[in-house]
């Protein structure tokens, strides 16, 4: 029995196409292709104008949340769960994960000071890396029993008088009192936070901070000074004031390892009693990773989390909460943090924005007026640029002063961008 011919696609009635039709169709295709090729040649030599490009119907500006595929404005999670991940520094040394070498450094500095030698500690690290947590745990462990004062700058020191006023309030002295004499009356521990507000990158803008550093150095036998500072401001101060020479110890709260980050997150998650469900990833590289490396979804998840957070605790906690797809019953469902493609966002940031972001990074937080003084631009221009960066979700409002500061999720991206342009090293 003869087999029935397979009907060709598109042939009316499903029957075989006659050769004449096929050759006519082929000829039409060849003619079209030739015509297209010939037009391209004419456009290349300039004989014909190229056709107008097809524009997409809608073009919207990207923002950081969209690039990260997360909602950054509100969390839909139950309050009882988000309360397990406060973004406040650790107070209890038992909750501190890792950081053994850093704690050894604190111990050494504290013992030097207790034995009568001058000692002062500079704690550096990027925003959210755990500097204040280190200080809290270090002081509780090695300096319990000492008088502890804690000062946090609330507004910028414009001149040395502002520094005097701040220190007088901190020490409980009258405004005209001799600060050095006041510091040398008895032994105590003083932590100064947000020292980035102690200067402004303008001519004469470092005078107040310089006076503070001289005061600190002169009194470091009676006072155990601890100053916390982000990494980029430290580099600026090192270049302008040779900052490091004022401190006997510098403790770097560097990037946490994957295990440290995982331990810190699971330590906080554990009291919830919920089990973790890691949703399978749709990303090809992660499937391949699992196929060849035989790694579990949990390991893949924490690997991705560590990579994107760059070992910064705060960023890691934020990404953890943002990766929660849902909490239902007795389980927390987590999806893999998607590797962001920053290209679209990068195109939105001009070189002028980078100068503003660099200045912001060097000061921790800036108001529009301060940015205008630093960059020698009109305040309105700076405000417009800051508001635009706010819309892009790269900056957020500073809770303490009327300024703008980096979002935790944007720190790595901006740092990479500044580094790419050789603006920070």
């Amino acid at each position, binding site marked *: 029995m003869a087999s029935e011919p397979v009907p060709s696609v598109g042939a009316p009635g499903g029957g075989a196409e006659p050769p004449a039709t096929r050759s006519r169709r082929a000829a039409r295709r060849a003619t079209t292709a030739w015509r297209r090729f010939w037009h391209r040649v004419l456009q290349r030599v*300039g004989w014909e104008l190229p056709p107008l490009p097809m524009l997409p119907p809608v073009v919207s500006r990207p923002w950081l949340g969209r690039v990260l595929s997360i909602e950054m404005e509100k969390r839909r999670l139950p309050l009882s769960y988000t309360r397990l991940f406060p973004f406040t520094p650790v107070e209890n040394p038992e909750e501190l994960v890792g950081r053994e070498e850093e704690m050894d450094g604190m111990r050494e500095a504290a013992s030097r000071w207790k034995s009568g030698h001058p000692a002062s500690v500079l704690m550096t690290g990027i925003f959210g890396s755990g500097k204040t947590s280190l200080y809290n745990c270090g002081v509780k462990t090695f300096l319990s029993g000492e008088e502890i004062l804690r000062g946090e700058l609330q507004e910028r020191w414009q001149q040395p008088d502002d520094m005097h006023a701040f220190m007088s309030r901190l020490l409980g002295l009258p405004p005209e009192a001799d600060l050095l004499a006041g510091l040398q009356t008895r032994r105590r521990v003083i932590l100064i936070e947000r020292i980035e507000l102690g200067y402004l*990158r303008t*001519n*004469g803008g470092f005078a107040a901070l310089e006076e503070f550093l001289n005061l600190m150095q002169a009194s470091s036998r009676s006072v155990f000074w601890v100053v916390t500072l982000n990494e980029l401001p430290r580099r600026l101060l090192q270049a302008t004031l040779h900052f490091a020479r004022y401190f006997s110890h510098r403790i770097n709260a560097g990037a946490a390892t994957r295990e440290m980050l995982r331990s810190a997150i699971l330590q906080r998650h554990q009291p919830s009693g919920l089990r973790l469900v890691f949703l399978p990833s749709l990303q090809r590289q992660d499937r391949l990773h699992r196929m060849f490396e035989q790694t579990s979804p949990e390991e893949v998840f924490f690997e991705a989390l560590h990579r994107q957070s760059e070992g910064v605790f705060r960023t890691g906690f934020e990404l953890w909460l943002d990766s929660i797809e849902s909490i239902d019953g007795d389980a927390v469902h987590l999806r893999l943090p998607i590797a962001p493609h920053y290209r679209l966002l990068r195109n939105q940031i001009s070189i002028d924005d980078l100068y503003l972001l*660099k200045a912001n990074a060097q000061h921790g937080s800036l108001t529009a007026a301060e940015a205008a003084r630093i960059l*020698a631009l009109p305040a309105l221009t700076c405000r417009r640029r800051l508001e635009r960066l706010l819309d892009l979700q790269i900056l957020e409002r500073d809770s303490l002063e009327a300024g703008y500061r980096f979002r935790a999720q944007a720190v790595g991206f901006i740092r990479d961008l500044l580094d790419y342009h050789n603006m*920070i090293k």
Partner: protein
Amino acid sequence: MLKSLLPDHLPSDAIAAVRQISLDTIVEVLVILLIFLLLSRGLNRFLNALGTHSARARALVQSWRALLQLVLWIFALYLCVRILAPSQNTVLVAFGSAALAIGFGTQDLVRNWAGGLVVLLNHPYRIGDRVRIGSAYGEVIHIGLHSTRVYSIDGDVVTIPNATIWSEMIFNMNYGAPNCMTVTDIYLPIDAPVDEVMQIGREAAATSPYLYLPEPILVSLHDELSETPQMRLRIRAFVYDHRLEYELTTDIACRFKRELARRGIASVHPEPEKISV
């Protein structure tokens, strides 16, 4: 008739060569030259018509015109030589003379190629470097076997023959790094307060957004004793991108002068021109 005009003492090869040239061959050669002349003019007209059609076509035409003309005339020369059909010796003599002339004329070309090889192997500069070669100053954008192209501050593209490296010193400002040192000179009255101006100069550089932080800032003072004695403050600082050299020096100078004005310290004003009567 042509042969009867020949003197008797010419070598036999020359006589044989001239004997080949007849009136027919001369007419043929002239006709060919005339045809090619018309072709050349026709080609020029066609290319001009093409160039008027669009600006983009004009640029294409300009870059190809000389080459097309050269090809046309080489073909014409080839046809003429085929018609004249000189003897092997005549051809060799002609080529020998031509080679001697070409050798003398292209010695600079060979020197440029040698210089290009040295540049490529020795790397006195690389693409992206900021260099000063002779009076040219700018960024190297192309290194070829024959020449190097530098994009100057004023937007000119300067072509420097590679043979220049044998005779000129080459100053490389950054040698592969994106940052480079800049120098800002500011002139002050001879009695300006030195400690204050040194500190202002250092801070003016330190506060500039163009500054490359890891490298140090160097401030120095020099007295210049000319008709009007003055003090020159020299601020050496590194810019993070060598293309922004003048942005940094201008920014430093502006910040310095603003601070001077704020503190009421006078800067140097040029003397009014003296009008000779």
